């Protein structure tokens, strides 16, 4: 793996993905250490009327619990939050999550851009944004916000992505700090945890 800035300043991780990202998320969550200390916010495109299933499936693969937050849920250290079906997931100042039913953004609700943008606004340069495989450009502007606020941007290697539209769209609007294969993302998170644990 290339040199990555493993800095203990980071306070949160936000992950987005669409087509093909479910398997990738499973792999990441399956390898995440149990004592992983940063909160992780996940937004992936999902079907409107299917409320359940995704959360159960991800939880089975994950060593840690994956939670769909309720509106105004306080954010806790080391918890994994998945944007619920048919709601946008916002991160708010004051350390909590809000949900909203506004119009779709990029034909999506939850929209990756919304979770990333609100996350960037709250965590500023202490945020790591990771965008995975996907078939549309949702998440690109969100990654730009992460970068604009001084956070770290990582995309899944387009060559490895099932569909590379999403990571490539992010590349075209902002500077990407690291292009990583899934195994490298996992290794990075494990190494990062050793630093942020201190």
């Amino acid at each position, binding site marked *: 793996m290339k040199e990555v800035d493993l800095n203990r300043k980071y306070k949160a991780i936000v992950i987005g993905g669409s087509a093909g990202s479910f398997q990738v998320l499973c792999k990441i969550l399956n390898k995440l250490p149990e004592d992983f200390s940063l909160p992780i916010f996940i937004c992936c495109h999902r079907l409107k009327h299917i*409320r359940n299933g995704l959360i159960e499936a991800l939880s089975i693969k994950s060593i840690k619990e994956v939670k*769909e*937050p*309720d*509106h*105004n*849920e*306080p954010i806790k250290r080391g918890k994994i939050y998945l944007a*619920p079906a048919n*709601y*946008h997931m*916002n*991160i*708010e*100042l*004051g350390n*909590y999550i*809000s*949900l*909203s*039913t*506004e*119009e779709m953004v990029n034909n999506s609700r939850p929209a990756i851009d*919304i979770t990333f*943008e*609100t996350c960037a*606004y709250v965590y500023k340069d202490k945020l790591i944004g990771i965008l995975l495989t996907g078939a549309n450009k949702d998440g*690109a*502007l969100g990654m*730009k*916000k992460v970068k604009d606020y001084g956070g770290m941007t990582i995309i899944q290697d387009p060559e490895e992505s099932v569909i590379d539209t999403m990571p490539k769209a992010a590349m075209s*609007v902002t500077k990407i700090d690291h292009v990583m294969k899934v195994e490298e993302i996992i290794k990075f998170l494990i190494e990062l945890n050793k630093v942020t644990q201190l």
Partner: protein
Amino acid sequence: MQTAPEIGINELRKLIQTISERFDYDFSNYSSASFKRRIQRFIEIKRLGSVENLVNKIISGEIKKNELFTEVSVNVTELFRDPSFWKYLRKVLLEQNFSQNLKIWQIGSSSGEEVFSLMILLNDLNLLSKAEVISVDFNAGIIEKAQSGLIPGKSMELNTSNFIKTGYKGELTNYFTAEGDNFKLNKDLLSKIKFKEINFVKDSFSGSVDIILCRNILIYHNPQMQNDILKKIHQSLNMSGLLILGSRETIEWSEIASKYTMLGPEERIFKKNKV
């Protein structure tokens, strides 16, 4: 492709203060991320260019209260939104065995779909004659729309699909009469709804109510306001009364958390404990 410039905290404060002074509604405890986006959207739709211009046009009277409030609130237009919820509510109401009159509040009239769905359910359960239904909203403009009983014809496909999933008797269109491009809720149902403007922030809710249907209202508000609204609801709700919230809303972190029992694992129907 450009992101809109972020609204600064000071600009936002100024706007909220102006709205409060001119329109007598305090948005300071709205969920801030979505409120900022609603304002951004309003500025784009009206081609105002900046928050400052919006503030000036509110002061000059060019921007009216109703048009701003209608855009700021998210008015979802679906009958029987979350069919699984409506299916479950029917079951719960059947089990409750209401003997005397039933007082119901529906909070957030929006364009009417939620309270129309409720009336259809009450009719289905033969509860219409003993029910008193009040629908409240903070936006007088939108109440007028709801009061008309009209829903757009183009939404009927989704409405019908929702209705079928609830498993209720009959045909959805039996409850409506076609009127041009719209469908109008039948008079026997519509005339039974009392609509009322209420300021969620300032007004106290008073009454002894059996059921409060308040779905997707808390999601506009921050934790402090969520707690305030829940306390007001709590004071108005009769013993063993039902508090009904949206599918991702909860009483969990509020002061009233211990005073209710959630019915069933899935839908957010809370029964007030007898103490």
